[in-house]
């Protein structure tokens, strides 16, 4: 599903050049649940941003579902993001003045889906994350866990090939984190490819594979025995 070869990325910080990614090689097959781990500054978020086409690599190749991702202009990047990717953020990033349902329906609006169909689909995904009764609520009327579940529903709504989660449990307490991970595991079990950036070992252990990043290179990439989140709840 994802093929990355010799990926380099550096940022200019004033006169200094910060080499964040120093040659990343890694593949993700369909249906995998991968954790990208590393301490802060290891380049894990940068990697995720490149995977999410929110940022572009300086060198190396990136192929997503057989399509080479390079020389993207804003327009194409937006279309690919909408078509291929679903994002889950640490700070949820819901639109504050829109109801849970409207937030979930947003990617569908940009896909050009008609309103009635949008509402129906969005409702379906809200049901899936267990928030059907909260569809009319604004984000600030929801708890952190509920917000993240709305965000997951939104990520799923566009039916993407890959879900990218950047510290999805970073703003949540342990119990809520496990609930969210249980949901993510359930989605993965249905066959969706998911990448999670995290620095928490217990969250990483709930995936099927852990990629360890340090100073811009992969130091360890191994399959792990998945811990079911439901066992911890």
């Amino acid at each position, binding site marked *: 599903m994802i093929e990355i070869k010799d990926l380099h990325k550096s940022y200019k910080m004033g006169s200094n050049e910060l080499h964040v990614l120093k040659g990343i090689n890694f593949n993700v097959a369909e249906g995998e649940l991968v954790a990208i781990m590393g301490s802060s500054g290891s380049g894990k978020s940068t990697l995720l941003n490149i995977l*999410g086409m929110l*940022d572009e690599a300086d060198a190396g190749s990136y192929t997503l579902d057989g399509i080479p991702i390079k020389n993207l202009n*804003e327009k194409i990047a937006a279309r690919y993001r*909408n078509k291929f990717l679903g994002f889950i*953020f640490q700070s949820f990033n819901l639109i504050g*003045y*829109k109801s849970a349902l409207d937030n979930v329906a947003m*990617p569908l609006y*940009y896909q050009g889906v008609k*309103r009635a169909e949008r509402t129906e689909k969005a409702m379906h995904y809200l049901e899936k994350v267990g928030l059907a009764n909260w569809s009319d609520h604004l984000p600030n009327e929801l708890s952190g866990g509920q917000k993240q579940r709305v965000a997951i529903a939104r990520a799923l709504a566009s039916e993407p090939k890959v879900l990218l989660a950047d510290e999805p449990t970073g703003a949540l307490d342990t119990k809520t984190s496990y609930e969210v991970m249980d949901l993510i595991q359930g989605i993965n079990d249905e066959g969706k490819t998911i990448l999670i950036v995290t620095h928490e070992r217990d969250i990483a252990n709930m995936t099927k594979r852990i990629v360890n990043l340090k100073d811009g290179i992969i130091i360890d990439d191994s399959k792990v025995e998945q811990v079911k989140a439901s066992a911890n709840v």
Partner: protein
Amino acid sequence: MFDIERWEEIFDTIRKNKLRTFLTGVSVASGIFILVILLALGQGMQNGISKEFEQDASNRVSVWSGVTSVEYKGLNPGRFIQMKNEDFDFIKTKFENDLEYKSSVNRIWSGLASYKKENGSYRIEGVYPDYQFIENASMTAGRFLNIEDHRNIEKVAVIGYRVQQDLFKKENPIGKIVKLSGINFKVVGVYTDPGGEREENRVFIPLSTSQRVYNGSNVIRNMGFTMQPQNTFEETLAQSKVFSEELEKILKERHTVAPQDTSAINVFNTLTEVKRFFDLITMIKLFFWVVGICTIIAGVVGVSNIMLIIVKERTREIGIRKAIGAQPWSIIAMILHEAIFVTAIAGFTGLLFGAGLLELVGPNIEVDYIVNPSVNFNVALTTVFILIFAGALAGFFPARRAAKIKPIVALRDE
């Protein structure tokens, strides 16, 4: 523009951000409202000042005599200069081609008029038939004096509307006999004057009659002329200036008055006054325009500011929208669409309120120099469009910048 989905999106945003929308709307609406009122006041002043000039023909030249103030050719100062019929005849003949209407005036002192038991003191003046046009008077009943009255030294009188009200009440005055300073005159007409009561407080009789009946000589008190209108205002003005100067020179020579004497012969040229007032009106209108344009600029700046704040406030939202697949252009279109919609609604509201207020209050305003303030609707409409355009332009640049921001930057936690 006809994308229903986007309209729904816009209405959703407006509904959920009422305060922001309201503030934008108020700044636009008040700008347009103030402009409409200012322009209307300018127009009202022009109307008012023009009205003040309707009391006499606007190209009138008047001349009257006084006492000399300078010694000249061995003659002492303090002489009273008395104009005579010969002066008028001389001027009339000399400027025959330039003059449109001309009349000399002989004033009867202590002009007491009475009819039956009613009486009152009025200005009684002996004039030529042309005087009707010099005074800008129009008849409400009967006729003005004519040349036959003058030739035959008829004892006929034309009275002002106010005089009619005083002496005759509801009675029809035409054909009635009115006593002027003890002598009977037949009323042949009633006139009205746009100058109002002050100008309608007079009685006109034939000049010949006034000279024959009251003091038996050929003295005249003043003369009034109007010039043949030329093609342009400027030409008329220039010609009337030349005439005024010539007139003064001739009269001074005929009566042996020093050329520099300013009190013996007085010439008053309405046209130069008109010119001064027209210049004043132009200045006032210009002033209102400048103030109005400044108001609009302030409005544009206000709208721009609000647009900047809106875009700033929505940067994160824009990042989110982009992350989930919004095209850059759709972001710009969304912001502009909202801005144009809000400014348009607010602009027309301001226009409507301003025009409505004028419609209600305008005709009731009765102040000197302000008459029926009104606004050119096209001008107001144009300013609304300018404001909408400016608002859109002011929103476009920040919106474009926001659409260019990488979502990763927009989403970065503060």
